[in-house]
Every structure is written in C-alpha cells, then in structure tokens.
C-alpha cells in the first residue's frame, strides 16, 4: 500500500483550516485528514469532510459535539472528548471526597462545555458548586481569580480551560499556596507536555484524566522509545498516541474493505474491532465515538519521579463502557 503524507498548520483558525481541507480534498486528492486540534476547526472540517464523502479521524479536538449533534458518517472521534474529561475527572474526584467545587472557566465554548459537563457530574454525585468565575481566553494573570477561589473555601478548584491558561493558573496557584492551604486543583484538560513545562515542583498533586500514558506498560514504552528521538526528545501525549492508533486502524480498514472511499472506510472501521499497542482493545460506535479505557492520573511529587517525563501515577482505571457518554444521550441524528 502506498501512503503519502502531507501536513499543514491551521494556526487555530477555522478559516485557514477550512481552506486547507477544501484544497486538500479537491485538488490534492487527500483521502483522510487526521489529528486536528482546536474544536472550532474540527467542526468546520467535519462539515467539509461530510460534504465531500472523505474521512476524518479526530484526535486533537475536544468537543463532544463531534459525536453528538454534529456527528457524521465520515468522522471518527478518537482519544478523548469534553464529556469524558468531565466525567472521568469529576466523578473520580467527588468520590474521593472532593465534593465542593469552584470553577475557573475559560470564557469560550470549550470552557463553557467543560464547566457545564463537570458541574452536572459533581451535582449528580451529591457534590456542590460553590462558585464560578469566567476569565478571558489567554489570560496572563490569574491572581484575582485564584483569590476568589480561595475565598470560596471550596475543596476543589476546577480548571475548565486548556493550554497556556491552564499552565498559568497552575503556576500561580502554587505561588498563592492554594494547595498548601488545603485546596486541590483539578485540571480538566492537561497533557504531559503541560506538566513538563510546569515542572513537577509546581504541578505535583494535580489530578486529571487521560487515555494514554507513555510509561503505562511495555508496549506503550516501546512506542515512546520510537517516538521520542524523532520528536526532539519529547514523550508522546494521548493526542499523539491517538493519531497513531487511528491511522493504524484506518489502514487496516482500507486493506479489509479494498477501497479508500471515505464513507465506506469509516463504516468498515466501525465494523472492525480495534486493537493496537497503545490503547489496547477497543471499538468504534455507530456515532463515530472510539471507545477505550480512561485513566485517572495524579502528578508525582519531585521525590517520586525517577527522571524526566516520569510524571504520572495512575490512580484509577475507568472502563471503556463508562468512560464515554452513552450513545443515546448525545443527540446524534444518525443514532435515532
């Protein structure tokens, strides 16, 4: 099988992403688009892929709408989504005693969704939300919001944000002694690369959910060993792993169905169970949601870590059937 790879940076802009996707499909005869971080771009490319009957394998974007109201027979949502994050982390934390929450939410659709989903989980488990504050996207200084979080005396400060906002908030939380003075931080979307940029001293104790960790077992370690040298020494995040897993399964489906027509391959991918060294055995649902176990993770203390990138300890495993939103609750028109 001859496989050709092209890549581009959409700069987190839906219009750039749309244009690249259109051009790839129309002119460059691209069959499948993979990875695609940033929910707004993913949603735009989702529509384009559906219109043109190609294939989309999303690993980077978070919005659970991709398997909800925007679900498509041409898209599979791999790795994670906002519902899984909210339920994985939220459930686990409330059950271990974190029953009062204060939300620090990024003021855009992704942050709102995360806050909404997590709040629902907290309340379902008998917890309370003592307060919330919305901060503008790309905020540099969280001191004011952290002060409000401290004043609320909630046991858990939930960070419904991502990227630079999350790492900034965590760094400054350490400065203001949030954890030292008795509250805990719950990062709702954290990658190992964020932990690396924060350093263990600052990030220790952080609790979040992910679906892949490079040091989990021999197979993941073997993958990491191949990955790191080719990528400036960084270890793979769950998004990286998701791309690998998705492409592997996609190629298997092409072989098995003997066609590269987008809609047919996606259908075949749903028919075949998945199995790869990174996520283990799993399956893909009718709404395009890939199912696999999720892991509740806590960041190690500096003393517990044996070296760079040895950051996470797995606290709990959430079985695949529970980790993702039940298919009938998503509002996906394909499933009615």
């Amino acid at each position: 099988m001859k496989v050709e790879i092209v890549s581009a940076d959409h700069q987190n802009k839906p219009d750039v992403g749309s244009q690249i996707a259109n051009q790839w499909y129309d002119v460059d005869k691209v069959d499948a688009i993979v990875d695609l971080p940033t929910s707004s771009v993913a949603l735009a490319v989702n529509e384009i892929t559906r219109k043109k009957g190609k294939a989309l394998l999303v690993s980077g974007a978070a919005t659970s709408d991709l398997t909800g109201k925007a679900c498509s027979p041409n898209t599979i949502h791999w790795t994670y989504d906002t519902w899984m994050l909210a339920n994985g982390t939220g459930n686990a934390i409330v059950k271990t005693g974190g029953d009062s929450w204060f939300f620090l939410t990024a003021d855009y659709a992704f942050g709102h969704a995360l806050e909404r989903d997590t709040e629902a989980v907290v309340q379902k488990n008998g917890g309370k939300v003592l307060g919330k504050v919305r901060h503008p996207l790309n905020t540099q200084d969280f001191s004011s919001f952290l002060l409000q979080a401290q004043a609320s005396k909630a046991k858990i400060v939930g960070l419904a944000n991502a990227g630079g906002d999350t790492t900034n908030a965590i760094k400054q939380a350490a400065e203001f002694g949030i954890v030292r003075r008795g509250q805990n931080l719950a990062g709702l979307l954290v990658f190992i690369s964020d932990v690396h940029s924060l350093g263990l001293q600052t990030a220790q104790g952080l609790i979040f959910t992910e679906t892949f960790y490079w040091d989990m077992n021999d197979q993941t370690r073997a993958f990491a060993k191949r990955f790191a040298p080719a990528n400036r020494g960084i270890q793979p995040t769950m998004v990286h792993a998701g791309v690998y897993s998705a492409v592997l399964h996609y190629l298997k489906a092409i072989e098995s169905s003997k066609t590269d027509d987008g809609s047919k391959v996606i259908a075949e991918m749903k028919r075949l169970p998945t199995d790869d060294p990174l996520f283990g055995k799993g399956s893909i649902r009718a709404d395009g949601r890939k199912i696999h176990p999720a892991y509740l993770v806590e960041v190690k203390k500096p003393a517990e870590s044996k070296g760079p990138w040895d950051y996470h300890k797995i606290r709990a495993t959430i079985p695949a059937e529970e980790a993702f939103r039940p298919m009938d609750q998503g509002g996906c028109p394909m499933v009615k």
Partner: protein
Amino acid sequence: MSTSPLSANPASDGSRAQLIAFAVMVAVLLIAPIWVYPIFMMKVMCFALFACAFNLLIGFGGLLSFGHAMFLGSAGYVSAWCAKSLGLTPELSILAGTLAATLVAIVSGLLAIRRQGIYFAMITLALAQMIFFFCLQAPFTGGEDGIQAVPRGKLFGLIDLTSNTAMYGLVLVIFLGAFLLIWRIVHSPFGQVLKAVRENEARAISLGYDTDRYKLFAFILSGTLSGLAGATKALVFQLASLTDVHWTMSGEVVLMTLVGGLGTLFGPVVGAAVIISMQNYLAQFGAWVTVIQGVIFVICVLAFRRGIIGEIAHAIRKPL
C-alpha cells in the same frame, strides 16, 4: 477650476496604463481558475477588495486605521447569521452584512475622525477591540467556534451557489464592481479633494472644504466596502470566525496594502495576492509564515516603500 490630467481626458497617458492593467487583471481572474484552485482565487478577491477599501482610506485619504478588522468581521458575522439562521438568499445576506459594516463605520467614524495621525489609529484600534469583545460574547456569533456550516443558498432564489463555479462568478462580479466603484471615486472630484486633504489639510481647509466631512465619508466608504468583502467571504468559506475581528487581521490588511503599494489602485490587489499566496503555500512551515510576513514588512518599510505596483508605476512614470 483646475483640470488635472486624469479627470480632463480619460484616454490620456495616465489612464491608458490603468486601463491596460485593468484588462490584465480581468483576464487573469477569468482564466486563472482553470489552473488555480477556485476557492483560493475567491479568497484572494475578497481580501483584495478588503485591501482596496483600506487603501481608499490610507492611500488616498492619508488616514491609517488600525481597526479595519471590525468591518470585515462584523459584516461576515451578520451575513453568515442571515444566511444560516434566517435562511435569507445570498444577495440579501451580503447586503445585510455590508449594511452592518456601514453602521459600524458611521458610529466609529463619527468618534474617530476628530483625531489625527497616531491618535486616529489608536482610537480605531480601541473601537475594533470593543467590537471584538462584542463578537466574542454575543451568543449569535458562536464565540470561538464561529458560525459554521453557512449555506450558500440560491442567488435570487434561482442560481445555486453550492457549485464553486457559480460562486466564483458572483465573487468576480462583486469584486470588479466594487473595484470600478473605487476607481470612479478616486477619479471623481470627491477623490481629488480627498487627496488634497491628505497632502495638506490646512490648505484644503483654507480653500473652504469641510475636511472632516470628506474624511468621514471616505471612512464610511472604506468601512462599507470592507464589509462587502467580509460578507462575501463568509459565504465563500461558509463560516464566520473570530479571526476576522482580531486585531492581527487589521495588521494584515496594512501589510497587504503596503506590499502592493499605498495609494495605487492596483497595489492592494497585488499585495493581497502575494500575502494570501504566501500564507497558503507556506502553511506547512508553521510559524515561518509570521516570520516571513515580518521580514516583508521590514523590507517594505526600509527599502520598498512604494510597494510592488508603486515601483512599477514609478518606473513607467504613470499612476497605477
């Protein structure tokens, strides 16, 4: 009554070069889609219109606005919303978007025109930031996701624009129409007064012209045509997003106009084509796009102030 060579005899030297350039431009736009991806060409035309509208204000009016994104973006949002949520036909959506931009231009123009130079630029920036904030918060804009899956609809209820060819025709007509409008304005008495205000405002005032009114009108015109570009673009890409109201978009249109040639008619078109092409073909190199744009900015300011068309015009000694 003074007669400048341009308004006295349309077939005189200066205009002939412009007519040739126009013919070349139309020919390129008609033929290129055979080889070049039509959506890319439509993007170039929309941004070329945006740059031409911006150039009207700075090249001919001498006013640097650092907030032009507010027109492009707000028109895009209104047009997208009309097409998607109200189900209006494309020509009505585009009209609605353009009118929205006109409204924004009138209000911001009244506020900004009273100041000059850097203060004018700063106030347009401030106003644009407020529009950005509004677009970020207002529920109908969809925040970070933007308004997606905007239907192109049927033009006048008859011509289905889903096909790229039909859409291309519409965008071409809009672009050429607006371009000719700008041409007409620049060569009209109004345009002459505007240039006079740019060259020496005090003298223009002493001649009895209400310069504020001329500047305001130029501002509103520039904003309206920028809105036309934005409203059309929303239908081409079938999406409206925050990128179009962010202040870096205001910076990009400055770059396009500068590269092409401030104060020339065809400069902004060429500038837009250059910058959009560069962004497109270098997208795979990630952050190098920003670096290269910066380098182009620096080179243009230091050594190439007239821009591409400006240099050509200077060489052939005719205005372009």
